[in-house]
């Protein structure tokens, strides 16, 4: 086997050196009755060529996704990813190394994480940034647990326009703690602030609001923050489409207490749902309750600036059951991917891509309404996702789009079983759809 260098001859030599006559002598401690006898019932080994052909055949059972332009987002957005990012990321020094416990051999990873923390802090105006929780959904779970620890309260209010997978994950994380989860209804596609005003009280640990929300609507975060803070609750703001940060106000400016950001749009492939990454921002005063790893600046013996994993007294390998989280391996390679992405996009690029998303989404929405085949569901400001009610059966529409190499938009009723959302589509438009593509969509749907 080409991945196992030692020959049978060498193994015999080694066994002799160990002082045993056979491999069996080394594993006698395993009770005989539990031993697996004979061969595992799995396919015989494939040669590299056979393997490549086999998996390529399976991959071909997917459609040619590269050529299919998505009109769907809903928590996973196809954006342009610079080739330089993908190329750099594959350097084995980033790709194959371990968690940077040994800073002398890991400055590449550590500095990269520190740079990412700095970028996110600039984009969000959050003072402290945890660079990596697995994804936005699990990060919501961690953020909510953090809020319970900080406030010693056990109720949370969650906007119904939080991504449904995030809400489901939140419920899973909070279930053992018997936390009461109060769902905040929406009005006109945005969280209902009147009801929030009536619902919030001093027993609420945190209010969780996604903006832009699952329907694409941009929430009135400043007003929400004021409401939440009057009752001493914490505001957890969720950003699922991080490209919006290019033009939207920084959550820190709204006095958000904990920010959860899905970093997928920062240079991460769709990959059928993962691995993505999430960053978590907060105020310095809450630092010690943060879950997950963080990198800080220090000096080495020669007095040079270096980077190291720090504030580790919160973590599971030191605190065990008293840790702020069980998280260990996270999604660090994706942190470096996003860091390279943000470096390449830079100040101007992130603004431009954000602008392009806004404009092209509004362009499509406008034309679809003008076509007479669609109407608005809600009157709300949006970034790059929006709802439209179709006059034609959306199943027919989606079939047509698929036949024309577009991944169709989300049927929102699949997630929200409400009568007014029947036959409604959630469109997402990013910069990978050209103006020509969008015109084509309008043409297909106007026929």
């Amino acid at each position: 086997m080409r991945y196992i260098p030692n020959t049978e001859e060498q193994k015999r030599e080694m066994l002799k050196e160990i002082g045993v006559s056979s491999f069996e002598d080394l594993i006698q401690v395993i009770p005989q009755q539990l031993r697996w006898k004979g061969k595992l019932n799995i396919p015989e080994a494939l040669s590299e060529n056979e393997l490549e052909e086999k998996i390529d055949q399976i991959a071909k059972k997917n459609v040619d996704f590269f050529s299919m332009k998505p009109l769907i987002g809903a928590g996973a957005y196809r954006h342009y990813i610079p080739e330089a990012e993908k190329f750099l990321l594959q350097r084995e020094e980033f790709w194959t190394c371990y968690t940077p416990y040994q800073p002398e051999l890991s400055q590449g990873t550590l500095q990269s994480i520190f740079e990412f923390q700095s970028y996110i802090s600039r984009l969000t105006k959050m003072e402290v940034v945890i660079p990596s929780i697995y994804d936005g959904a699990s990060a919501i779970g961690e953020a909510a647990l953090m809020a319970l620890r900080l406030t010693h309260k056990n109720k949370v209010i969650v906007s119904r326009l939080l991504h449904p997978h995030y809400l489901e994950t939140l419920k899973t994380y909070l279930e053992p703690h018997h936390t009461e989860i109060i769902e905040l209804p929406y009005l006109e596609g945005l969280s209902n602030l009147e009801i929030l005003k009536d619902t919030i009280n001093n027993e609420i640990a945190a209010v969780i609001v996604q903006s832009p929300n699952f329907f694409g609507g941009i929430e009135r975060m400043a007003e929400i923050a004021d409401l939440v803070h009057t009752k001493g609750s914490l505001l957890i703001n969720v950003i699922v489409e991080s490209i919006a940060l290019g033009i939207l106000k920084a959550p820190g400016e709204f006095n958000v207490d904990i920010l959860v950001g899905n970093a997928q749009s920062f240079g991460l492939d769709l990959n059928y749902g993962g691995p993505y990454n999430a960053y978590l921002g907060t105020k310095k005063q809450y630092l010690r309750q943060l879950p997950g790893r963080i990198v800080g600046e220090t000096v080495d013996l020669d007095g040079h600036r270096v980077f190291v994993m720090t504030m580790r007294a919160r973590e599971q390998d030191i605190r065990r059951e008293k840790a702020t989280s069980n998280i260990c391996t996270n999604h660090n390679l994706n942190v470096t991917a996003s860091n390279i992405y943000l470096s390449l996009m830079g100040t101007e690029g992130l603004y431009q891509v954000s602008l392009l998303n806004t404009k092209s989404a509004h362009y499509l929405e406008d034309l679809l309404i003008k076509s007479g085949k669609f109407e608005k569901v809600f009157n709300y400001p949006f970034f790059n996702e929006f709802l439209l009610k179709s006059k034609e059966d959306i199943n027919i529409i989606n079939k047509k789009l698929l036949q024309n190499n577009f991944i169709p938009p989300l049927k929102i009723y699949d997630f929200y079983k409400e009568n007014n959302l029947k036959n409604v589509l959630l469109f997402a438009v990013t910069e990978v759809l050209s103006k020509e593509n969008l015109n084509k969509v309008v043409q297909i749907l106007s026929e």
Partner: protein
Amino acid sequence: MKLILEKSVKGRIGYSLPPDLFEDIKLEDCIPGYARHKDKKNLTEVSEVDVIRHFTELSKLNYGLDDGFYPLGSCTMKYNPKINEKLASLGNFTYAHPLAPQETTQGSLEIMYNLNKLLNEITGMDEYTMSPAAGAHGELTGVLIMRKYFFDQGDERHKMLIPDSAHGTNPASAAMADFQVIEVKSNLNGTIDLSELERLMDEDTVGLMLTNPNTVGLYDEGIVEIEKIVHSKGGLLYYDGANLNASLGILRPGDAGFDVVHLNLHKTFSTPHGGGGPGAGVIGVKKKFIPYLPTPIVDFDSVKKQYYLKEVGPKSIGMVRSFWANFPVLVKTYAWILSMGPEGLYQASETSIINANYVLSKLRDYFKPVYDRYCGHECTLTGKEYKKYGVKTLDIAKRLMDYGMHPPTIYFPHFEPYAEETIMVEPPESESKEMLDKFVDTMIKISEEAKTNPELLTTAPHKTPIRRVDDALAVKNAILTYDDELSFQKK
């Protein structure tokens, strides 16, 4: 070296975007003023060339698996096959949207379906969920499944037994599921103390989380009795798969009575660590726990002849993440198993066990084994003999870097009284005898240096890109972003 943020030159760009053909649309008409940022947010301004040079230079400060020996105990730093990377990055996989109609994603679903079958056979379980993103995430998923199972039986239990040698993630995961953690002491052999287990295991206890071989690298010889003790009180056995690399084709956790297992695909199954993930921590269960798995799982509709994502049902613990899985990690795992075949898997475990015992036998006179017996796929030594020269295990580890090797895992496990100043060496099957000999010779050389020139070790490393780091200062200053007022650069 400078940060990429410090290399900014006004007006430089590194991106490429299509032209804005939407001149008629004004940003102010789309986004209301209260939500709009007043100007562009400052990141950096660099060219593509700057970025390539910066990150290439950064990468050279890292030590990767392809650079050399990486014997981190309990981490299974084995070779990451290159063909698997290519296969996982096929365009049909990487551009697949998770909510695309399922008739367009049959290939991705088939990979998940097939992998489930293979993992079941390898571990003796009945069904896997591919959802968990990492080992600890799998642990949380697993203990939530156990919790929900008891809850459904109307038998709410509150305690979880965890050996003193366990990874920190075990107690932390149990705590996240709101279990009271009860530590089980190890016996003189370094394994579970059966009488202690018998005393602690009661009807308010969910079960035991066990790594086998354990984190000292030892197979638990009492595994049959452990299973009886835990199950006789109605408890469940959780298998931490961190050390599965010692068991392929030798001992299937399912056959040993484990009810719930997690596998670290980025350990035993050869997928890269990426500087701390992404990996995957898939969970396998016995039949009666399938209704509790996180939703959804992949199934095959034999009428429609289609793979599909199936809702698990009302007993499911719910979702533990957005979407379905860390998909490329699954492709790499699948490819690895198919490349190895049944003989290859057995050889992987056989070779890793021989490797570890070889290192143990060669180094035992220089670094005393914590337990003097044959080990599994990793061996735990100690550096405590060298304390009298003023040298700690940390110093030995740092000195190893000067010889071009990554240190083993140190100070873990660190339970009293047996395991102190530990050095845990895991030389997986992808390491050759020549490499092990080189490591052994180097360790012996360092043991001599410790006696004759301890300062060489206490000030090590000397030949790495940076010198030893001031951890305490990092905590004290808490400089966590470049813009912090306390930044070293600005002082």
